C-alpha cells in the first residue's frame, strides 16, 4: 500500500538513525539509484541561506557541481 504524504514526510525526517537507514543506502548503491549520467538533471528552484532563489534552469551554460549534505 502506498504511503501517505504525512508518512513519507515522517520517514524522510526520521527521529532516530537505525540500521534500516544504513541498509537503504547500501541497497541504493547496489541499484545505482538516482539520476544516471547522460540523463537530464531535474530542475529545482530553491532558496539559499542568504534568501536568494536559485534554479538549475537559470544556470544553463555553466558547469554545476551539486552536493547534498546534512548538518549532522
Amino acid at each position: 500500500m502506498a504511503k501517505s504524504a504525512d508518512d513519507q514526510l515522517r520517514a524522510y525526517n526520521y527521529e532516530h538513525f537505525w540500521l534500516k537507514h544504513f541498509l537503504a543506502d547500501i541497497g541504493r548503491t547496489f541499484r545505482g539509484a538516482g539520476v544516471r549520467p547522460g540523463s537530464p538533471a531535474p530542475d529545482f528552484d530553491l532558496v539559499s541561506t542568504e534568501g536568494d532563489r536559485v534554479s538549475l534552469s537559470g544556470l544553463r551554460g555553466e558547469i554545476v557541481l551539486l552536493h547534498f549534505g546534512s548538518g549532522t
Partner: protein
Amino acid sequence: MRFLDVFIHQAHPGGLRHHYETFEDKLAGAVEYKAEEALPWPMLVDDLAGTTHNAYSNGMADPVFLIDTTGLVSFYGMWTHPPTLRVALDELLARGGQGVAVGLDRTPHLLASFVDGYRGPRRGGRRAVLEYDLGAFGAGSLSFIGHKAKRLLSPVALRSTPLPPPTRLRLLLGLVVTLVLAGSLIVLAVRWLD
C-alpha cells in the same frame, strides 16, 4: 562554474539537533551549519519532504553531481569522494563542459567520512553518535577514532586528488603485510594460551 550545496534532512538526529518538523527549523539549521563550517559557496535548502534530494539520488546520504553546460548529468558520485570528483571535473573541462565524464561512481568511499565526518553526528549529540554506532556497524566509534587520528590519516584519507599508482601499490602492500603480521600474532597468541 557553480558550486552549490543542498541542505537535506537531519542524517543523525539526537538530543542536541532534532529532526526537522518545519521548513523554518531546517533553514535555521542550514544557516548554522554554513556558519560553523565556514562554507564559502551557496547553501540551498531543500523542502521538508526532500523533493530535490529524492529526485536526484533517491535519498543517498552524501551524493555529488556534475551537471554539464547543457543540463545533463555528467557525473554522479553516490558517496562523495573528492579525488574521483576531481578526475571527473578535469575530464568534463577537457570535453569543453559537455558530455559524460567518469559516469557513475558507486564505490562506498567511507574512509574520508570516518576521518573527517565525526563533526556531523557529534553535532547531534551523544544519542546521535550511539545510534550511528548501532545502526552502521560501529561507524560512530570508527569516526571518533578517525577524528582523533586525523592528522596521521589525512594525507591519504582527505586528498583532493587521486593517489599516484606507485603510492597505492605501496599502501596495498603495507596493508597486506600488516594483516599478515596481525594474523600471525593472533595465531601465536592462541597457541601460547593453549
